[in-house]
């Protein structure tokens, strides 16, 4: 096949998949309101996607904050601006690192769990059984998990940011002896509402993207052990690439 033919085939496959995902997103959104009839299911999914990711999110947030503290202090000290460490870390975390890293961690933990759970339900005929009992699996299984992920992501991002700033404070204030008053007052004064809005919008968009990819891949997985494994892998890879692409687009829009 010629290079043009190969590129054309890849483009066609990509567009077909994008179209299928968009149709699936519309179907899931259409079932989102009926899915609220089962608040217990939704709460369960927020717990699964959110609460069960807390430890990894907090741990990673702490270390990312501490690394920012060390690197930031080293850089700012060259210009005699160590006191601005809190500002640099807070803005970096709230606008960029928090939403992106939380989304990547979410895809790795909650996204894979969602994809494999739904994929296994398909492989063991549970989704077909629901269809045969006149229950739409998209409403009962997919929509609550999708909504749970979308709700959990901004909450996890907020926790990641808070723990990250605390980590930077540990380095800046406790280790490097920046006065706590200076650190916190500069941070509070520098962070504006638009910074928080940018972070929140990013985390919601990433939440939609990561949750959609996870439920889509799980729902459309081949009903075999290998198929479920592949769906899980695709969830992580596609989510990571899409999050970074979307982050670039959103950052360009906000600046």
């Amino acid at each position, binding site marked *: 096949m010629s290079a043009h033919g190969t590129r054309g085939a890849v483009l066609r496959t990509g567009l077909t998949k994008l179209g299928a995902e968009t149709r699936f997103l519309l179907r899931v959104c259409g079932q989102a309101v009926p899915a609220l009839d089962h608040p217990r299911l939704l709460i369960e999914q927020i717990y699964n996607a959110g609460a069960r990711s807390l430890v990894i999110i907090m741990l990673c947030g702490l270390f990312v904050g501490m690394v920012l503290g060390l690197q930031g202090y080293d850089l700012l000290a060259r210009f005699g601006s160590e006191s601005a460490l809190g500002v640099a870390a807070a803005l970096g975390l709230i606008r960029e690192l928090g939403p992106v890293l939380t989304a990547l961690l979410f895809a790795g933990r909650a996204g894979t769990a969602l994809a494999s759970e739904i994929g296994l339900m398909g492989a063991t005929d549970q989704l077909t059984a629901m*269809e045969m*009992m006149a229950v739409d699996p998209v409403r009962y299984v997919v929509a609550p998990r999708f909504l749970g992920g979308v709700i959990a992501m901004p909450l996890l991002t907020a926790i990641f940011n808070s723990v990250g700033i605390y980590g930077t404070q540990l380095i800046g204030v406790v280790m490097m002896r920046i006065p706590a008053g200076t650190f916190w007052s500069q941070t509070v004064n520098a962070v504006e509402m638009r910074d928080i809005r940018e972070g929140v919008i990013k985390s919601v968009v990433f939440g939609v993207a990561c949750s959609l990819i996870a439920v889509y891949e799980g729902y459309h997985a081949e009903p075999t052990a290998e198929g479920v494994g592949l769906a899980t892998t695709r969830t992580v890879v596609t989510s990571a690439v899409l999050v970074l692409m979307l982050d670039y687009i959103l950052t360009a829009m906000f600046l």
Partner: protein
Amino acid sequence: MSDRAEGAGEPLIHVQDVHYAVGAHSVFSGLNVRVEAGKITAIMGPSGTGKTTLLRLIMGQIQPQRGSIRVFGQEVPTLRRRELFGLRQRVGLLFQNGALLTGMSVFENVAFPVREHARLPEPVLRKLVLMKLQAVGLRGAADLSPSELSGGMARRVALARAIVMDPEVLLYDEPFVGLDPISKGVILRLIQSLNRTLHITSVLVSHDVQEISAIADQTYLLSGGSVVAQGNPSELRNDTSEVVHQFMTGAPDGPVPFHYPAADYYAQLLEQ
């Protein structure tokens, strides 16, 4: 060969001249099946003849390329999703592996269709579920999870779930596969008693000749994409055609060959 349904009006399920293919592989080419109300109808045939596919066609999960499938007088392939879901509430399906929802207890599995389709008060729902579990002998297992059940128990829980909405028709997909003789006997007795006491029309897909012979009113034998024989079990046993004889006696070779089509054996061995 008997065909008591012929001329007896519209059957409950009527499959007429159905053609279905997956890619280039033809599964059915002109399939005709009638399921009469209140009877136990068995669909038999060697593995891979499309018995389960027929159930999926009847339930509207897949569409035939040609032909008519009427259930309760409704043309299934033309039904909208909402109408199809309405029809499925009147038809129960027992999956080969039970297909129990693993995140729920036995009780919740049986209660699931009722919770989704009927807003019954919790005490009434509880009584209903316990009655269905009692019918399959598993009331004591109500709090167990599906992973704690044996294959036979899972099949019985699935049966309780299939009858909890009091369907008019029950479709069984290989109900005896992988069961020990005791569990087979239990399932056999349950199918019979459901048919007799609740007058549920039953369609069994199976290749267990002995079990089917014991309970079926009408049997269809599928092979090569269509019905090759039909009648009651004793008529099938006395059928002299090669296909029926091979299936009923379990002969390893015959019209259904032992060897998958392949190139010449010796030529392939001597190939450099």
